[in-house]
């Protein structure tokens, strides 16, 4: 039996024009939580729906536990649980009826009560779906994926639009599934979600993977784990940027809306030198802060854009 999810050189062209996915290859190991991180429109949903067998790729190969979607799709469907980016479940069914409906579509489902309990929906089990909050609806969507007792869980933007508490609840559910040996593939455009939840990540942009690795790994590739951000009053043209680059321990520099960001290995070496340089040039420091580098910085470094910009 092959790895839970494997795809090679996936391409998807819509209407012969729009290239949503342009040669994407992945291999996800059993028990792993793998994240596709990227801005809106990067091709994450297209990719995950191809892997789920809901879209057929223009070219490329997909295998779920070594099998293609053409061989025995119903068997593959028994193995996977899916939460789509947007599904409006029937509002006039209760939570329990909804879960029971999905349970009955699988050969060996889990008991509905267990799933209700696990997703903290027991109290709401007799409420109509239409009466649920956003977080409860999202948990119900995941419940319909878990009730079939899957080996792989696909989650497309599971926490978009949720409040912080609901997001954390969902993260716990995903971890619980993983602890029981399940494999997870999720898409997100939240870097904190990717950092906390995923064992491994692929950063996707314009339909290709531009970086892949564990979150610490990706941040390491920046060269420095720290960022020093400051503003000076006075001109900071391209020439000036070069002078900041030559400060000790600086790995890279970028300039953004008047703020200069230095990517730094050891801030305690950089900051005194930075203050000296500002004084020497007769400029004044308006603002100075340091922070840990995040996946957002990795993305900006790779593309020159922010995740949220799309």
């Amino acid at each position, binding site marked *: 039996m092959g790895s839970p999810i494997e795809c090679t050189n996936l391409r998807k062209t819509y209407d012969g024009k729009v290239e949503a996915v342009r040669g994407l290859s992945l291999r996800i190991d059993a028990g792993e939580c793998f994240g596709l991180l990227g801005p809106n429109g990067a091709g994450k949903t297209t990719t995950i729906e191809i892997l789920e067998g809901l879209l057929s790729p223009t070219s490329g190969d997909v295998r779920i*536990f070594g099998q293609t979607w053409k061989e025995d799709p119903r068997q593959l469907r028994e193995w996977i649980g899916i939460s789509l980016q947007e599904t409006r479940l029937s509002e006039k*069914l209760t939570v329990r009826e909804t879960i029971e*409906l999905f349970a*009955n579509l699988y050969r060996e489902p889990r008991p509905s009560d267990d799933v209700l309990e696990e997703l903290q929906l027991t109290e709401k089990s007799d409420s109509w779906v239409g009466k649920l909050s956003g977080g409860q609806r999202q948990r119900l969507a995941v419940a319909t994926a878990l009730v079939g007792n899957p080996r792989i869980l696909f989650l497309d933007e599971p926490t978009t639009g949720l409040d912080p508490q609901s997001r954390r609840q969902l993260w716990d559910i995903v971890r619980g599934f993983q602890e029981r040996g399940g494999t997870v593939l999720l898409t997100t455009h939240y870097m904190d979600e990717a950092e906390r939840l995923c064992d491994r990540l692929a950063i996707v942009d314009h339909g290709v993977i531009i970086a892949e690795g564990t979150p610490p790994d990706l941040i390491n590739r920046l060269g420095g784990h720290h960022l020093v951000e400051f503003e000076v009053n006075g001109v900071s043209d391209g020439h000036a940027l070069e002078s900041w680059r030559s400060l000790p321990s600086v790995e890279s520099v970028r300039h953004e809306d008047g703020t200069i960001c230095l990517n730094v290995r050891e801030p305690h070496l950089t900051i005194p030198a930075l203050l000296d340089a500002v004084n020497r040039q007769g400029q004044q420091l308006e603002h100075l802060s340091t922070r840990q580098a995040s996946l957002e910085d990795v993305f900006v470094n790779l593309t020159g854009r922010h995740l949220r910009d799309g």
Partner: protein
Amino acid sequence: MAMTETTLKKSGQTPPSAPARTTGRWSGYRYLLWVRLLELTREPEIAFWVFIFPLLISLGLGIAFRNKPVASNNVAVVAGDEAAKTVAVLGAQPRLGFHALTLDREAAMKGFRLGKFDVVVEAKADGTYTYDYDPARPESVLSRSEVDATLQAAAGRKDVLVTTNHASSEPGSRYIDFLIPGLIGMGLMNSGMWGIGFSLVDMRQRKLMKRFVATPMRRSDFLLAVMSSRLIMMVIEVGLLLLFGVLVFKMPVAGSVFAVLLLGAIGAVAFGGVGLLTASRAQKIESVSGLINLVMMPMWIFSGVFFSYEHFPAVTLPFIRALPLTALNDALRATILEGASLASQSGRLLVLVLWGGISFALALRWFRWT
């Protein structure tokens, strides 16, 4: 390292929880059907439109046409020397229900054009009468001849033939008896088109259909559940209208109830197929609503729900009879009112089966699940 990999692989092969129960081959179908019926019972609007609304139409139209009094003749008499005498002559015949008013010529003609009067009578000074009437309006033609006969008789004309009249408003030949089978047919069309076409596109738009397709559900089970719920609804729908006609209007049911229900089932499945085809590609409920109306419009007009389609020009009749609702209405009327056997209506049944079968086949080929 090798050890860890084996453990990981193993854990990936078995589901995260041991199987607690196994479901049967038909449990998916049964639950899909059950949930569909549950949802219907929780949507009071659906119950109203499907069950109550046809009853209200038949009640309204049944009363309107059953209690229609002896056609009243609205006559305008042009003011003049003879006017009062004319009004008196007409008033002396209460059986004919003349409503005669005296007006000047201009007001009388205006009222006539507005349909307030069926005929305008003017007595000339030389003792002759003129009638203004509209030969294209049946009640106008009727009033003209009633007025003429009354005035002629008053002037001394004698009838030479002895005639006897029998009023015929026996159950079975009244308008309501014609109407109820038509309403049953129209109801089956409406629920087939809206109940299947609209609800499928709604599920598609909500991405619920895609969510179902992402499970091991058999697509045939899903469609079968949709059709089964339609048939269950059909029994209630047809049964209610039939019962209503029998209890409230004493409509005679000449054919067997089983034959009527069988016709209902064939009609429901035929329109289910047409509804499925209409809904096979549409992504938005707005677009499918337009399509459904477009498909149903010709049948509302031509298929003889409220009045007989025999009034349409003879060349169009073969086309009208090829419409599924025409075939269904004709078959329902023949079975309910005349007790015709299903075997004697093979042509109509063939029309229904062809419409249902061909649209089903096309719908399955084009159907968009995601």
